[in-house]
């Protein structure tokens, strides 16, 4: 029997990862047609689609894997299921509901270009301040931390070295 993470990994693969998302745009439809509700642990279909879209737009596939390639949404689903207590879970649900409202009903189904513009506008407002954007910044932090905690994020994107072997206190950036 597959674990929830494996199911979610399959889910992301089934929708083609970042390239498919940015190409066809309609995340919710793909998820709804490819999986049953039982495949999801913490997130609803709509929540998963929202998290997937935000993750994809924040950390897309470039020369290195993107957030969907390494299944950040599935990782967060597991984190909320296994790590979070009920208060954090409810807060996270409310955060996604609030974000969904901020981003609009068509954010998940919009074209990549339109969704990117919408998220960019939200991101700009969030970093100008305002307590109503704390949730977004929190989610952004969680997505980013999760991505760089994956093998691809750590090794391929950030060139993290497990055992540096020495301390060099002042290195020129070339």
């Amino acid at each position, binding site marked *: 029997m597959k674990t929830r993470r494996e199911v979610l990994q399959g889910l992301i693969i089934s929708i083609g990862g970042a390239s498919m998302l940015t190409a066809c745009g309609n995340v919710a439809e793909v998820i709804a047609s490819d999986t049953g509700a039982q495949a999801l642990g913490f997130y609803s279909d709509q929540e998963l689609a929202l998290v997937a879209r935000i993750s994809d737009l924040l950390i897309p596939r470039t020369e290195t894997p993107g957030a969907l390639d390494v299944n950040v949404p599935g990782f967060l689903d597991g984190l909320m299921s296994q790590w979070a207590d009920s208060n*954090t879970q409810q807060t996270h649900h409310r955060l996604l509901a609030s974000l969904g409202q901020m981003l609009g009903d068509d954010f998940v189904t919009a074209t990549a270009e339109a969704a990117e513009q919408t998220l960019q506008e939200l991101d700009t407002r969030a970093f100008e301040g305002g307590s109503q954007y704390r949730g977004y910044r929190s989610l952004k932090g969680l997505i980013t931390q999760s991505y760089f905690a994956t093998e691809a994020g*750590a090794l391929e994107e950030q060139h993290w070295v497990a055992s540096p072997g020495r*301390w060099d206190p002042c290195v020129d950036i070339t």
Partner: protein
Amino acid sequence: MADFDAIVIGSGMSGGWSAKELAERGLKVLVLERGNEILPERDYSDQIPPWERPNLDRVAQDEIAQHYPKQYGGVAYAIKETTKRFWVKDDEHPYAEAPGTSYDWLRGYHTGGRSIMWSRQTYRLGPQDFTANKLDGHGVDWPVRYDDLVPWYEHVEKFAGIAGSEEGLPQLPDSVFQPAFALTCAEQEFKTRVESAFPGRNVIPARVAHLTQATAEQRALGRSNCQARNVCHHGCVYKAYFSSLNATLPAAERTGNYTIVHNAIVRSIEYDAAAQRVIGVRIIDAQTNETRFYSSRLIFLNASTNASAMILLQSKSTAFPDGLANSSDQVGRNLMDHVSGAGASGLIGGFDNKTVFGRRPGGIYIPRYANITEHDKPYIRGFGYQGSATPLGNAGGQIPGIGRKFKESHRAPGPWRISIGAFGEHLPNPDNRVTLHPTRRDKWGNPVALFNVRYGENERIMLEEARKDAVAMLEAAGCTQINSSPVTLTKPGNRIHEMGSARMGRDPTTSVLNGWCQAHDVPNLFITDGSFMTSSACQNPSLTYMAFTVRAVNYAVDLLAEGRL
């Protein structure tokens, strides 16, 4: 005929040294460890890469609430899913706090004790620390002076391995060093500017118990140089940082004179009134609840400051109705820690084209200057700062932007941020104490600890001044975006530098131990964990525990050989 020549209670920072030195002097030694056995190859998690640590290595929130509310509240930075085994579960090992007080008793029960989880900052005390009580009247006078300790500091430093730089500062004497972890370029700039603006203040590399030039003796124990990974709270397969498990216990074991028994919770130390000696230790097995008795000619109590006091208080007899070696009524009193909660951080510019390679285990240290080189203070004693100046990095995702640019911005080191925080001296006060709770018992039937510890006005005033000084130094260094939160004193115990519960002194009526860590009341009982500390100074204290331990062992074994015990 006793079962052993010596029993060492506790296998942590000082207990490991007791075991090593006693065994190397030819005594048959039994170490009693109340916790479980730690096997590095099985229990260290430093080799697990981040992507194999579940849930960002976070302990489930419900699990924290149930098992680790105190421990996690105190050291969240160290308690991870893959390290939680090194910390006690609060619900299994409860303690109590007097009304209106709060105390952090942060600890682990296993081979090596907290020497596995310590933060490895390692400093000698200075000459001023041994005369402070006498000069200002707080506490009792140390029966020892700095010069008495110098050869013993050297002894432990050579074996343990301390990375640091020779600075020639009288208040923070140099150790026997291996090469320091050098200052970053921003730290070097900070040092130049601070030392220019504030003559008498110094910014130096942190001194840490890490190997950077392992000796043949250290390599023979399987230890090698620090790999700059900074995963020390997970253990270290390279054995690069000093711990009992990495160094002293293996050294004891290779003598053939060493035995360790785990899951051995001390019920009492038994006293023979006729002989006026302790004769052994009664324990309860943590797993089977079986009680056993081990006899010995000599006992070294190294259970840790709070636990050692509790063991003494539990060990009542007709001769010592208030607890073993407690004719002075000082056992459990004068409990000290270091106090933090004041500091500043800011950005330090000019290094956008620089970064670092590796993750060193320490940063910078600003040795005490208050009442050393500056004498205009509204408080007595002083504090040192620990800190660092490193690239901030962007891993938290808290920078604007989305898409490729946002993703790739994480490759850049980001702005350089400097942060310093004070560690201040805590004055001895007999009202600050640990006692046995009058009614509550743990699952093995031992009384739980009851803490009643507060900071005083000197600590409060000192930390307020430390905050101002921190801001002034960052301003002098040209930092921007300086942030310095209002002072919030750390809870007593939070620095995990408990000291003083069986202080040494010259007068048996006002102190528990003499200058050799030997109980005034019981000649074959020695206590060499933090209990003996007569004042706290402001330096991280483990090195001083080590030095006093080897000095005490040498003294005790000589006495034993001369038939004077």
